[in-house]
């Protein structure tokens, strides 16, 4: 019995840490300070070690959880996202007076759900994992209970998310009705057997599943909740959900569409093409007109979802590797940017307008330099990770014959540089306003997280070969 449990060890570590955090909160006296964040980091490190030990082993638990290299690679990204989010959260939790134990417990539960989603090989389990992570993230979005913006954001996210989940579940039901199974391998076999003439019911099911995934990765036209939710949540939570949720959803998306539904590629390719193009264009064009930096980054993250869809559509070996590499780069960079926004916010002032960043360079040269670096990486400048990631995505698209999509991608990428550069121009070339941003001392843990993030972004940009090899190796195990 016990050796079949090895595949669930990573999420068990994270869940144990989450439960410990919850229990600690139960026995915490009001105002008592407890190291609950570090406790969560310990759990996540345990998960990272077990993930490392599971590499190349292809462990399976319950015929539903598959710890193949693909899932493990995404799990590493998710664990890194979890650790960095917790590190970035500590000053914000303190400043806003957020409920300590609940905050970290929810973050850890969400991480466990994400890891499960990346490793699940059964549609029902994917749905369960999706719900575990979504419910935790809904609450995290509205954790600033006294803020009207946060409550509105959480409500919108919850209502639309519930709809999307219903779509997804409906898709699962129809898939089961047509193929007689919820197991991805069996579904794939059943579809391959009848791929010459797929039944309309199967196409319907596929469409429903696509809507569910497209909502979670905030692809146009299912992106409406994104700017509001990202703006209302505390910045570290925004960083967490814009990277973790996206990575987990893309992992499951890839598994379902490139493995189980691969025989029907002829049917879904055009839809994904259109959605990817719309996502890149809308994300970029609307992002240009934003004056709040959080909304701007929200639209930028929509556009990045579009680039990931391009890689998914390309679907060749290069494209599959590019998805993983892009996810890793995007996750780290975006987390860094939102972590920094969280540090710059203060209790009195939100400081989330782009104009608030005027002259940041004079007050805080290091913060300005790091912010510039993250934004340039998101925009796809060498020598940062974002450049290599975009390069691989577009090469993959061209090789797979999607030249026009690659052209749209490059053009939107150029336009997006406008709004990233606008912040940099604000920070470096505009004189500071009468009341410039004053960041109080940055706690060591958040500073360390910033440094780690910056180093990884540089490493992925300068020496991408090693990570690219890992990504390619992990893709080989499932497709």
């Amino acid at each position, binding site marked *: *019995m016990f050796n079949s449990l090895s595949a669930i060890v990573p999420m068990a570590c994270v869940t144990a840490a989450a*439960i410990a955090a*919850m*229990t600690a*909160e*139960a*026995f915490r006296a009001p105002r008592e300070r407890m190291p609950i964040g570090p406790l969560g980091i310990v759990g996540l490190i345990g998960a990272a070690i077990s993930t490392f030990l599971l590499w190349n082993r292809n462990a399976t638990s319950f015929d539903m959880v598959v710890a193949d290299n693909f899932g493990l690679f995404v799990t590493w990204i998710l664990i890194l996202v979890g650790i960095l989010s917790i590190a970035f959260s500590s000053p914000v939790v303190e400043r806003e007076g957020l409920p300590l134990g609940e905050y970290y417990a929810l973050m850890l539960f969400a991480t466990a759900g994400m890891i499960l989603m990346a490793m699940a090989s059964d549609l029902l389990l994917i749905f369960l994992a999706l719900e575990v992570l979504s419910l935790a993230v809904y609450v995290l979005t509205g954790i600033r209970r006294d803020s009207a913006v946060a409550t509105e954001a959480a409500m919108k996210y919850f209502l639309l998310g519930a709809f999307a989940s219903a779509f997804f579940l409906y898709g699962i039901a129809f898939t089961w009705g047509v193929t007689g199974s919820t197991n991805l391998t069996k579904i794939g076999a059943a579809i391959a057997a009848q791929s010459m003439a797929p039944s309309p019911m199967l196409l319907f099911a596929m469409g429903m599943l696509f809507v569910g995934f497209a909502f979670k990765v905030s692809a146009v036209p299912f992106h409406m909740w994104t700017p509001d939710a990202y703006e209302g949540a505390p910045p570290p939570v925004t960083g967490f959900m814009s990277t973790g949720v996206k990575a987990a959803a893309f992992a499951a998306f890839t598994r379902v569409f490139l493995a189980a539904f691969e025989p029907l590629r002829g049917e879904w390719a055009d839809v994904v093409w259109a959605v990817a193009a719309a996502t890149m264009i809308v994300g970029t064009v609307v992002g240009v007109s934003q004056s709040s930096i959080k909304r701007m980054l929200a639209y930028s993250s929509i556009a990045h979802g579009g680039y990931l869809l391009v890689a998914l559509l390309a679907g060749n070996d290069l494209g599959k590797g590019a998805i993983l590499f892009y996810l890793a780069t995007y996750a780290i960079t975006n987390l860094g940017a939102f972590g920094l926004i969280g540090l710059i916010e203060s209790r009195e002032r939100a400081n989330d307008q782009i104009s608030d960043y005027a002259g940041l360079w004079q007050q805080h040269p290091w913060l300005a330099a790091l912010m510039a670096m993250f934004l340039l990486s998101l925009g796809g400048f060498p020598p940062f990770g974002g450049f290599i990631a975009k390069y691989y995505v577009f090469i993959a698209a061209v090789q797979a014959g999607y030249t026009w999509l690659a052209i749209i991608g490059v053009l939107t990428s150029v336009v997006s540089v406008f709004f990233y550069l606008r912040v940099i121009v604000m920070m470096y070339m505009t004189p500071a306003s009468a009341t410039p941003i004053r960041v109080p001392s940055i706690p060591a843990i958040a500073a360390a997280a910033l440094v780690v993030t910056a180093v990884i972004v540089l490493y992925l940009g300068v020496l991408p070969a090693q990570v690219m090899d890992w990504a390619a190796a992990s893709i080989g195990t499932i497709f």
Partner: protein
Amino acid sequence: MQGWLSIFIMLIVGLAFGGIMVGLGVLLGPSKPSPEKSAPYECGMPAVGDARERQSVKFYLVAMIFLLFDIEVAFLYPWAMALRDLGWPGFVQVVLFMGLLLTGYIYVWRKGALDWGADK
């Protein structure tokens, strides 16, 4: 589709009959409204207030906690029925499940969600 025709006719006749009766009443009947006549319940108790009152949020909390802990029984009965077939692995799983629920219970209790007194 043949069998549905009679139901369709039935629907049409029903709608037409109801419509004609109500229409005739409006057209031919005298109309002399008074406050008593236009009250929602013409022959009942007079309304004492708005039905949309604020409820204490504690009701929702208790309902939700009840749901959560009620579900455990739904898992325990099938396990009890299959106790001998599942053996020790099943026992370990159920104990783990109960342990998790217990943690949740401790949390709910310590956080004061079960206190029904006045606000502290």
